[in-house]
C-alpha cells in the first residue's frame, strides 16, 4: 500500500510537472503537436507504401508461378498419358516427373516443393523432395477446387512441410489423365519476397522515424524564431513594469515580428512619456507643498511672535483688547496645529513620508506620553493608568511617529473619557508590539470604527467643536502606522467606551501576523465600570477592521 502510495504521489508530481511545462512553453507544445501529427501521417504512408511494394512482389511471383504451374501440368499430362491408374510403375514415373518439375532449367528457385496425387481415392501424396510431407498444407477448400471444380487454385500458407516454418504460395492444378483426376501441387517458397518486403518495411520505418525527428527539429527551430521575440517582448515588458522605462525592443526587418517590436516600443514610449509627465506633476505638487510650507510659515512666525509680545503685555490693556489678545494667541495655536497636520497629510499624499526607524524602548515612549498629557488629563479629571511589561519593550520604530500616534490616541481618549480613567497597555511577542488605549466614555456607534480614521470626521459636530483637535489626528496616525507596516484599529460600543489598538512589527519592514493584545477589551461587555445600559447592546463580536486589514495585505 505504502509503495503504491509513493508511486502514486510520484506519478502525480511528474504529471503536474508535465502539465506545467505544457501550459508554459509554447515551443514545447508546438514541437509535441508536430511530432504527434507527423508521426501519425508518416506511419500511415509507411504502412501503405510497404503494403503496395510487398503486394507487387507477391503478384509478380504469382504470375511467374502460374506460368510454371501451367507448363508443369502440361508436362505431367504428357508423362502420365501412357499409364493406367493401376500401373505399378506409375509411382516411379510420378517421382521422376516430380524431380523434373522441381528443377526446371530456367528456374533458380530453391526450396520449391512439388507434390502429386494420381487419384483422390489414395490418401498419400507423392512429393519431391521426397522427405517432405505436404498433406497438412493442402486445405480442403484447395482440394475441392482442384478435384471437383477442375480449376487452378492458389493459396498462401505458412506451414512446416519438412523444411522448417515457411510461407508458401501454394498452387494446385488438375492434371488430365486417362483415368481422370490426378492433382498436382506446387509449393513456391516466399522467403525472398518476404525478406525483400521486410527490408522495405525497415527502410520505411527508418526513413519515417528520421523524417518525424527532422520535422520536430524544424518545428522547434521555426517556433524558436517566433517565440524568441515574444519572450524578449515579455522580458522587456517586465523590465518596463519594474520601472526601467528606457527598455526597448530591437526592430529588425519588416516582418510581423518587427511590427510587434515596433508597436511594443511605441507603447513603451507612450507609457514613458505619461509616467514622466505624472512624475513631473507629482514633483511640482511636492515642490508646491514645500514652498507653501515655507512661504506660510515665515509670516506665521512673525505673527506668532507679535501675538506673544502682545499677549505678555495684556494686563496693561483694557479688558476687550486683553481678551482679544488671548483669543489671538489661542487661535494661533489652533492655526499652527492645523497647518502642521495639513502639511503632514500632504506629505503622506505625495508619498514623501519616510520612515526613520531605530531600536526604541516603547515603555519609555508610553511613559513620556502619559507624563506629557498628565496636566491635560488632570484638568479633565481623568486619571491615565499605564500598564507596562516588566522588561523593556524594544522595537525598530520611528520614535517621532509612534509618539505622535500615542499622543493622539491618549489625547482623544482623555477628551472623550468623561472623567473616567483612561488605560494604556503595552505588550509584545516575538514578532510584534501592541499598544491599546482604552476609555470608558460614550464609545462609538456601530460602523464608526472605520469612520473615525477619516479626515475631518466628527462623531457629533456640535459637540466636537469644543475640543481642540484638528480632525486630522487619527488619519495621520493611521498613515504613520501604515508607514511602519503596522495596524491601527478601533473598537467601540455605545455607552461602553472605546479601545484603539496600535500593532507594529518588532523589526522594521517585517509583515505582521498577529497582535499580542486583543482589540476587543476583556471588560467590553462586563459592565466593570457602571454605566447606563446601552439601548440594543450587541452580542460580543470581533468588529470589522477594514482599514488595518488593508495595511496587512499590502
Amino acid at each position: 500500500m505504502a509503495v503504491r502510495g509513493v508511486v502514486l504521489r510520484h506519478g502525480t508530481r511528474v504529471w503536474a510537472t508535465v502539465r506545467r511545462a505544457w501550459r508554459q512553453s509554447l515551443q514545447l507544445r508546438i514541437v509535441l503537436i508536430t511530432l504527434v501529427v507527423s508521426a501519425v501521417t508518416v506511419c500511415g504512408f509507411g504502412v501503405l507504401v510497404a503494403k503496395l511494394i510487398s503486394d507487387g512482389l507477391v503478384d509478380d511471383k504469382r504470375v511467374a508461378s502460374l506460368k510454371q504451374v501451367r507448363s508443369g501440368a502440361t508436362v505431367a499430362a504428357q508423362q502420365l498419358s501412357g499409364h493406367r491408374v493401376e500401373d505399378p510403375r506409375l509411382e516411379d514415373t510420378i517421382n521422376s516427373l516430380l524431380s523434373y518439375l522441381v528443377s526446371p532449367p530456367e528456374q533458380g528457385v530453391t526450396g520449391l516443393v512439388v507434390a502429386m496425387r494420381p487419384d483422390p481415392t489414395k490418401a498419400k501424396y507423392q512429393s519431391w523432395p521426397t522427405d517432405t510431407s505436404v498433406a497438412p498444407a493442402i486445405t480442403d477448400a484447395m482440394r475441392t477446387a482442384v478435384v471437383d471444380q477442375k480449376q487452378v487454385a492458389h493459396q498462401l500458407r505458412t506451414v512446416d512441410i519438412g523444411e522448417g516454418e515457411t510461407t508458401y504460395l501454394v498452387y494446385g492444378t488438375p492434371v488430365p489423365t486417362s483415368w481422370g483426376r490426378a492433382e498436382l501441387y506446387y509449393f513456391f517458397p516466399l522467403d525472398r519476397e518476404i525478406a525483400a518486403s521486410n527490408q522495405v518495411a525497415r527502410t520505411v520505418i527508418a526513413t519515417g522515424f528520421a523524417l518525424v525527428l527532422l520535422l520536430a527539429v524544424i518545428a522547434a527551430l521555426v517556433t524558436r524564431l517566433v517565440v524568441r521575440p515574444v519572450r524578449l517582448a515579455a522580458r522587456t515588458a517586465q523590465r518596463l513594469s519594474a520601472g526601467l522605462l528606457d527598455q526597448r525592443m530591437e526592430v529588425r526587418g519588416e516582418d510581423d515580428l518587427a511590427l510587434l517590436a515596433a508597436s511594443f516600443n511605441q507603447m513603451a514610449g507612450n507609457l514613458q512619456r505619461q509616467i514622466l509627465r505624472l512624475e513631473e506633476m507629482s514633483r511640482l505638487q511636492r515642490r508646491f507643498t514645500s514652498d507653501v510650507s515655507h512661504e506660510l510659515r515665515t509670516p506665521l512666525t512673525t505673527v506668532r511672535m507679535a501675538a506673544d509680545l502682545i499677549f505678555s503685555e495684556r494686563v496693561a490693556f483694557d479688558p476687550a483688547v486683553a481678551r482679544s489678545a488671548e483669543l489671538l494667541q489661542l487661535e494661533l495655536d489652533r492655526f499652527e496645529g492645523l497647518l502642521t497636520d495639513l502639511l503632514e497629510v500632504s506629505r503622506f499624499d505625495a508619498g514623501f513620508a519616510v520612515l526613520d526607524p531605530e531600536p526604541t524602548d516603547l515603555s519609555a515612549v508610553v511613559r513620556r506620553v502619559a507624563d506629557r498629557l498628565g496636566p491635560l488629563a488632570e484638568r479633565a479629571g481623568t486619571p491615565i493608568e499605564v500598564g507596562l511589561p516588566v522588561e523593556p519593550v524594544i522595537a525598530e520604530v520611528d520614535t517621532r511617529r509612534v509618539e505622535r500616534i500615542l499622543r493622539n490616541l491618549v489625547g482623544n481618549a482623555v477628551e472623550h473619557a468623561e472623567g473616567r480613567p483612561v488605560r494604556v497597555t503595552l505588550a509584545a511577542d516575538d514578532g510584534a508590539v501592541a499598544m491599546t488605549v482604552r476609555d470608558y466614555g460614550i464609545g462609538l456607534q456601530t460602523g464608526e470604527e472605520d469612520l473615525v480614521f477619516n479626515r475631518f470626521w466628527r462623531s457629533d459636530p456640535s459637540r466636537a467643536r469644543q475640543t481642540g483637535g484638528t480632525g486630522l489626528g487619527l488619519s495621520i496616525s493611521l498613515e504613520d502606522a501604515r508607514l511602519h507596516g503596522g495596524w491601527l484599529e478601533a473598537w467601540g460600543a455605545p455607552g461602553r467606551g472605546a479601545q484603539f489598538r496600535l500593532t507594529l512589527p518588532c523589526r522594521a519592514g517585517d509583515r505582521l501576523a498577529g497582535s499580542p493584545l486583543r482589540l476587543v477589551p476583556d471588560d467590553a461587555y462586563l459592565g466593570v465600570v457602571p454605566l447606563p445600559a446601552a439601548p440594543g447592546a450587541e452580542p460580543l463580536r470581533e468588529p470589522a477592521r477594514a482599514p488595518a486589514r488593508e495595511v496587512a495585505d499590502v
Partner: protein
Amino acid sequence: MTAGSRNSLAEWNIVRMRARVLVVDDDPALAEMLGIVLRSEGFLPSFVADGERSLAAFRDARPDIVLLDLMLPGMSGIDVCRAIRAESGVPIVMLTAKSDTVDVVLGLESGADDYVVKPFKPKELVARMRARLRRGEDATPEMLTIGPPGNQITIDVPAHTVSRNGEEVKLTPLEFDLLVALARKPRQVFTREVLLEQVWGYRHAADTRLVNVHVQRLRAKIEPDPERPEIILTVRGVGYKAGTG
C-alpha cells in the same frame, strides 16, 4: 576683594546677558520682529539678509551666537553654516520651515548645533539660545579620561580642550558638552532624551535626530574608526555611553 569679585561677576553677567546675536534671515518682517524680541530679552542683535554677505557680517560682528535661516537668497543656509563652522565653533541655531528628516539632518551635519522649526514661540527660541550660551559656569578643575587603553581621550574641562594621544582635537562647544556629559559618568547609559535635556536644555522632547547627528560628528573627530566606535558606544534601543575599555 569681595566687592571686587561681586562687581566682576556682575560685569560678567551683563556681558553674558548682552550676548551678540547675528540674525541671518531674508524676511524683513521676521528679522525686525526677531530684533524686537531679542532686544527685549537683553540680546544685541545684528542682521544680514543674504547668504553671500553673511560671512563678512559674521567677521565684523563677532557674534556669540548665530540664528540662521536655511532658505536664503544668494548662498544657501547650509553653505553659510559650513563656512562659519570652518572658521569658528560659535553656536549656530537654524531656523527652518521644513521639519523633514532630510532637511534637518542636512542642516545638523553641516555644523548647526540646534534647530527651531517655524513657526516657533519666542520663548522657545530664547530658551534654546540661552541653553547654547550657558556654559563654563561650573568651572571646577576637572580632568576626564575615557576610551580603551592605548586610544584614550583626555578632557580638560575648565580649559575646554580635548586631546587624543597628546594631540589636541578641535571640538565645537556643543560637541565638547556632549563629550563631557558622557565622560563624567562612564559606564552609565544615557538615553537620547536625557542627553537632549542635559546638553541641549530640552525638556520632554523626542527629537533624537539632533543627538544622533551630533554623536556621529563627534565620533568622526575623536574615533580612530567612526564605523566601529570604541569611545562613544551605542547601546541598542537605549542610547549611548562612554567606552572605558
